């Protein structure tokens, strides 16, 4: 169904326009803040708009099945590159998530001191790129947004970072860039092969799915995609850019990195890599299992050794992303829906934890665990939220992460019991470091006699917002899971 | 008969060149080279290219080599001290490369030319001139322009401040 208003293009260009306007207004920090927030809110409303329309509409000519919103414009016709956007249930959820997390990021960066206008403008630009990635159905467009995401992110880390920002930026850039170049090669190879087979040179994803790829070559191409996505994920041995980047980025940067950029990789695997190369992905599945399970356990274990809270959360974040990889590897409807759910939950829980660490950092000017202790007695409200998000992250039922982890594990157990068993072990390790974090921050004697300020109204509103989502998704995740159902049936039956 | 002459000329050519590249002084090398170029000119003649043979003598042995001599004398480079000579160690990479090149060429030659029967046809000057000006007229023009540029360049480089 194509509506009169080009919602999909608007979703991409609204934040970009916002970024320009905020940049223009950067002299006045408060105007820039409110404008950015207004654009964030408008984007969120726009992202939720498709919930209201009829999503079961009959298939139209030229529109791939399952996509209830679709736009197709010619762009660089010479090479068969088109500006094709489409939205199904999966992208709808991701788009809403992106809009939500961006609002949280904008509010969380309310107190940035240096060049705030530029900072917010970069955040909005990043949002535009991520939205574009979640919506594009043209591989070239996808690649374009994939690279475009990098640029604002690099500036966010490099300019506003702490610690060793330049080192982290370069590391982040090199890792992701190597991966994406390989992906570009694979995309071009696929494009040429499809052109040679059918005579029509196109980057359109639905068309490329019908390319017959020789098995050996398919392995290489899928490997290139997998490597690229695995770096962004990040999966086990390719992760060392991640703790550095997460640690040195400013709060909103970490939030965007952990909550959204890692999801783009998982989204790419689900939307592109697995459907394009069914045989090759089957062949490499054991590798993904091993890497995912190793990641879950190894990162949880390493997280335990950290003294820097942000670094601990960085490892915790990758550990949880292991469940997403596990669910995708199983490639059964239940497991993949669990993986998608875990993407949403991970974005919210981990994002919330990073925001909270930012708040603690702001107050105590330290992220070292030994500088904390007895926070519960000082700021009970802050501590309450900290506890909730940590318990969600540890997979306590009734909160969001439990649901998705259960679905993933039940789904994976059906296909690969051994992998599921390893992940179960990981859930014990997860609890160990989570409880340690909670204990060293909240409990014990007050190690520093500093006075910590209680949560302000601005911070409180963010935390309440996040906590409500955490509980809602833990108790009643049905609406979100229902959105995944139709697209997954289409994806997995191919 | 002609073949014998050819082989004798080839021997002169190769020995002259060898002497030229191993000569201790540049002036001597040029004299040796003039000898081998005369042999080459005769070989051209034997191969039915009298025009090229004449040009070889006139331009190469006559003009270019004299130009070399002229420069050497102008810059007073005659004494061996002024021009560094190759050390013994310099010859090894050269020899190694030469061996490799010759070996590779030999392999290529032996595998390709064996089937071709011997025999030459003379090419009359008329045909030569016809091809040159009819078919490659543009090339002639370009070469003449190149000569002009070289002239300008040489003048520019050689001017005194």
């Amino acid at each position, binding site marked *: 169904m194509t509506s009169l208003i080009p919602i999909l293009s608007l979703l991409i260009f609204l934040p970009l326009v916002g970024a320009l306007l905020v940049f223009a207004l950067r002299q006045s920090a408060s105007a820039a803040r409110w404008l950015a927030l207004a654009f964030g809110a408008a984007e969120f409303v726009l992202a939720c708009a498709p919930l209201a329309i009829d999503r079961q509409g009959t298939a139209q000519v030229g529109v791939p099945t399952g996509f209830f919103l679709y736009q197709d414009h010619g762009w660089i016709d010479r090479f068969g590159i088109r500006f094709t956007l489409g939205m199904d249930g999966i992208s709808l959820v991701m788009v809403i998530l992106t809009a939500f997390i961006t609002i949280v990021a904008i509010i969380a960066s309310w107190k940035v001191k240096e060049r705030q206008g530029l900072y917010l403008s970069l955040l909005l630009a990043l949002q535009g790129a991520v939205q574009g990635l979640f919506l594009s159905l043209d591989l070239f467009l996808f690649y374009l947004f994939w690279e475009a995401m990098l640029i604002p992110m690099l500036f966010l880390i490099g300019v506003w970072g702490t610690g060793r920002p330049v080192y982290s930026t370069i590391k982040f850039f090199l890792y992701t860039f190597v991966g994406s170049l390989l992906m570009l090669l694979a995309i071009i190879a696929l494009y040429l092969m499809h052109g040679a087979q059918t005579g029509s040179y196109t980057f359109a994803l639905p068309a490329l799915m019908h390319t017959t790829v020789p098995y050996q070559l398919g392995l290489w191409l899928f490997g290139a995609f997998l490597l690229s996505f695995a770096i962004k994920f990040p999966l086990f041995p390719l992760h060392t850019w991640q703790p550095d980047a997460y640690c040195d980025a400013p709060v909103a940067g970490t939030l965007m990195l952990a909550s959204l950029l890692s999801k783009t990789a998982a989204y790419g695997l689900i939307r592109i890599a697995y459907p394009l190369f069914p045989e090759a992905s089957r062949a490499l599945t054991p590798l993904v299992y091993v890497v995912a399970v190793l990641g879950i356990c190894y990162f949880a274990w390493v997280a335990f050794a950290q003294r820097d809270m942000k670094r601990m959360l960085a490892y915790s974040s990758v550990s949880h992303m292991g469940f997403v990889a596990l669910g995708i590897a199983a490639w059964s409807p239940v497991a993949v829906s669990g993986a998608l759910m875990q993407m949403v939950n991970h974005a919210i829980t981990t994002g919330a934890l990073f925001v909270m660490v930012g708040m603690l950092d702001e107050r105590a000017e330290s992220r070292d665990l030994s500088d904390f202790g007895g926070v519960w007695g000082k700021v009970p409200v802050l501590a309450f939220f900290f506890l909730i998000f940590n318990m969600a992250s540890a997979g306590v039922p009734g909160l969001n992460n439990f649901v998705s982890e259960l679905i993933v594990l039940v789904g994976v157990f059906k296909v690969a019991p051994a992998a599921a068993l390893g992940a179960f072990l990981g859930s014990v390790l997860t609890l160990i470091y989570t409880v340690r974090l909670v204990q060293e921050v909240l409990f014990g004697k007050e190690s520093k006699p500093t006075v910590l300020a209680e949560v302000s109204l601005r911070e409180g509103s963010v935390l309440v917002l996040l906590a409500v989502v955490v509980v809602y998704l833990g108790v009643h995740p049905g609406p979100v899971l229902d959105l995944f159902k139709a697209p997954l049936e289409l994806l997995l039956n191919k | 008969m002609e*073949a014998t002459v*050819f082989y004798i000329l080839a021997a002169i*050519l*190769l020995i002259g*060149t060898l002497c030229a*590249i191993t000569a201790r002084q540049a002036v001597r*090398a040029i004299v040796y*080279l003039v000898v081998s*170029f005369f042999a*080459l000119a005769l070989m*051209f003649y*034997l191969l*039915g*290219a009298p025009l*090229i043979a004449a040009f*070889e003598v006139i*331009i*190469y042995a006559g003009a*270019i080599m004299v*130009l*070399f001599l002229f*420069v*050497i004398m102008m*810059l007073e*480079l005659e004494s061996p001290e*002024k*021009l*560094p000579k*190759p050390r013994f160690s*310099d*010859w090894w*990479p*050269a*020899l190694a*490369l*030469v061996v490799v*090149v010759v070996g590779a*060429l*030999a392999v290529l*030659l032996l595998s390709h*030319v064996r089937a*071709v029967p*011997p025999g*030459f*046809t*003379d*090419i009359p000057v008329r*045909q*030569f001139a*016809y*091809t*040159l000006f009819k078919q490659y007229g543009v*090339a002639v023009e370009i070469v*003449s322009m*190149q000569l002009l540029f*070289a002239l300008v*360049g*040489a*003048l520019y*480089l050689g001017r005194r401040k």
Partner: protein
Amino acid sequence: MSVPLSHILIVASLMFAMGLGCVIAWRANVIMMLIGIEIMLNAVMLTFVGGSAHWGIADGQLFSLMLMALTSAEVSLALAMVVYLHRRKQTVNTDRFDSMKG
């Protein structure tokens, strides 16, 4: 004449190799390097003429002629440069001209 083409080519390649050796061995002496280049060019000319005679086509000879024109241009420029460089540094030792060092 009953010399096989391959013999001509062998002679040409030997000559070419000698020129190459000359260029490489006299690494510091710019005059001898130019001489080496002349030797190589002559070897190429021999190949052209031999081929031309073998197939009875004038193009080979013609290219020899072009080569000669080219060589004369090249030599005149090269020697002009030698003069120029000598004027600047009072030497023609190529090892002394290394301002392009990376």
